[in-house]
């Protein structure tokens, strides 16, 4: 079995670039790295088939002389399909990650950080876990302000005031967004507002 040197070189190049890209923190680069790695492996498998005629017979002459090995071609088909499906899933996940945290990078594990620095970073941890628990993305963040319904203990008026206060706070938070000192506070209020948001949507879901 002979392998064309240029193909082996290409395979090595794909592996090298793929691994380099996968070491990045940016998710899009990880995805590209995975695609390159996958193609590198596919190339590796197809190279094992060796060069030869297509593995087809005319039905009369059943000699396999000079044919390429058909088995790697069957294997690579399966491998390509799997890589394709997983790439699609990764893309969807990266998009979701972008929707949720507005960053194309791998996020730190808050629980891990807590252990590492022992100090509790409560507000941040709460903000990151409570933040947008629903399927509806950004919609769930803004509470339904016009809805007239009773709170557990209060009157509808109390809720309206509450919502107004949140709106005001949200606006202020938006203005001072680039101030790092306020960031923790900011996270806490946004967690609160999404909390009231899900309360607000509950009656609507029940209808």
């Amino acid at each position, binding site marked *: *079995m002979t392998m064309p040197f240029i193909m082996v070189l290409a395979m090595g190049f794909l592996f090298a670039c793929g691994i380099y890209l*996968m070491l990045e923190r940016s*998710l899009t680069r*990880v995805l590209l790295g*995975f695609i390159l*790695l*996958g193609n*590198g*492996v596919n190339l*590796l*498998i197809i*190279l*094992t088939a060796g060069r030869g005629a297509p593995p087809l017979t005319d039905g009369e002459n059943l000699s396999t002389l000079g044919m390429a*090995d058909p*088995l*790697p071609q069957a*294997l690579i088909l*399966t*491998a390509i399909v*799997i890589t394709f*499906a*997983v790439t699609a*899933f*990764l893309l969807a*996940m*990266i998009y*979701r*990650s972008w929707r*949720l*945290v507005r960053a194309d990078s*791998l*996020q730190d*594990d*808050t*629980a*891990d950080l*807590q*252990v590492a620095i022992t100090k*509790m970073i409560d507000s941040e941890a709460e903000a*990151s*876990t409570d*933040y*947008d*628990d629903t*399927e509806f993305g950004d919609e769930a963040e803004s509470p339904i302000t016009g809805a007239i319904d009773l709170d557990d203990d209060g009157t509808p008026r109390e809720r309206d005031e509450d919502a107004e206060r949140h709106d005001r706070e949200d606006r202020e938070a938006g203005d001072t967004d680039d101030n790092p000192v306020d960031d923790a506070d900011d996270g806490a209020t946004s967690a609160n507002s999404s909390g009231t948001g899900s309360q607000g949507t509950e009656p609507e879901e029940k209808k």
Partner: protein
Amino acid sequence: MTDLLPTLVPLPVLLPLIGAGLALVLSKHSRAQNIVSILILSAVMIISLIMLFGVDADGPQVVAIGGWQPPAGIVLVADRLSSLMLVVSSLVTLCVLIYALSQDANDDSNETPISVFNPSYLVLCAGVANAFLAGDLFNLYVGFEMFLVASYVLLTLGATAERIRAGVTYVVISLVSSIIFLAAIGVIYAATGTVNIAQLSERLSELPPDVQMILHVLLLIGFGIKAAIFPLSFWLPDSYPTAPAPVTAVFAGLLTKVGIYAIIRTETLLFAESSLRVPLLIAAALTMVVGILGAIAQSEIKRIVSFTLVSHIGYMLFGVALGTTVGLSAAIYYTVHHIIVQTALFLAIGMVEMRGGSTSTRSLGGLMVLSPALSVIFFIPALNLSGIPPFSGFIGKVALFAAGFSGQDWLVTVLIVAGTVTSLLTLYVIGRTFNLAFWRDPADAEEPNEELVAEFAERKKAKLAGKPWTSQIGVPGSMFAATTVVVVASIVLTVFAGPLWDLADRAAENLQSPVSYATKVLGGDGS
């Protein structure tokens, strides 16, 4: 019986796949979907049991899929090891399914969209079964991919920020492991011209030793990531704890053990002659010690148990690395024990979370008083995990150490010491967790949970006044029942340790003679 067995072999893969399709079609009718899923998994469990007894009596069953004979075609091979693993995995998956469905039925937050859960869960079961039954490396890869893709979906159910973060780590690491495995398959095919395990066991030993070593290491790295062996284990405690409790339970119980299963196959059938005994033993020792040290630092019960999971993988690797029949039987017994105990523990933790509002030992407390039954359900597998004498964890560890002592080797002695220390540290971690979450007054917690504190005070008042007291927050009975079944299964492992050990021993003997495996697969005409 003999005629029936080959027909049964493909069913543990086929039935869940058909079930997944049905469940997808029935996604609008969650009740029908649940019934289908439960029926399918029960059927798989019964089939696996019949297979185990049949295979134990009649020897390995080989089925050539689609009539294409090995080595060219795809074969499914059910020998003692794979049918034993199938029985355990089907029991665990069935119990976890019932648990998950009843949790979902009682869960107001509804964070797991059930229409997606059932099909992916069934695909996961099919993938695990396929990996256990695979008779060629590429089919093993396909089995791995099946359950991995299903696990990606299950881990990111609901797609919250926390789960997506954990999911990214998990998916990328799993992809790397799959790519390495696939590359290993490619290189092995290039070197030997086959992917059939039986044929490989004959041809690999003819290769030059250094080529063998490269192939061996490539495969072990691929499987090692899946099995969470020390230098490759960092992804696990990072990603498992965020998933819903039943999902974590089945991942922790089964998925890492599929990696161990693959390692057992690699070490015995494929590379019986090229030994990586020393590196494997060192990896096993480090896995045990580093894992349990990680657990000590944690304050989340889910994370603590994830770290003990990593650490106890070391015991199985220890048994495999010894390379003796006794070592292998101990590893097999320990694997069975660990699947069941780890699942039970995670299911119990799921109920703790439901009952106490969180899994942080910084805010839990008083559960012993508030929910005595739950504490028993948690306590038994917890003690079992740390290897307290009457339980199967103790039997498994003693068997492993006994297998090690028969070797007379200083490295193995170091490993036995590491194993003992790990076991004691596990007891310490588990004891501390139990102390904090179950025994102390919830008001003493660092971040007291107000509901728990109020409830605890109410309970105290009722007791002083001599009035009966019932809790407002209950855990659904069917969740409780499912967990109890797994806990009882773990006790059964102790009671029937004798027969089970004999079975593990026979399975290990099978594994030690790759030649008979090869003749069975290649020589048999598939009937």
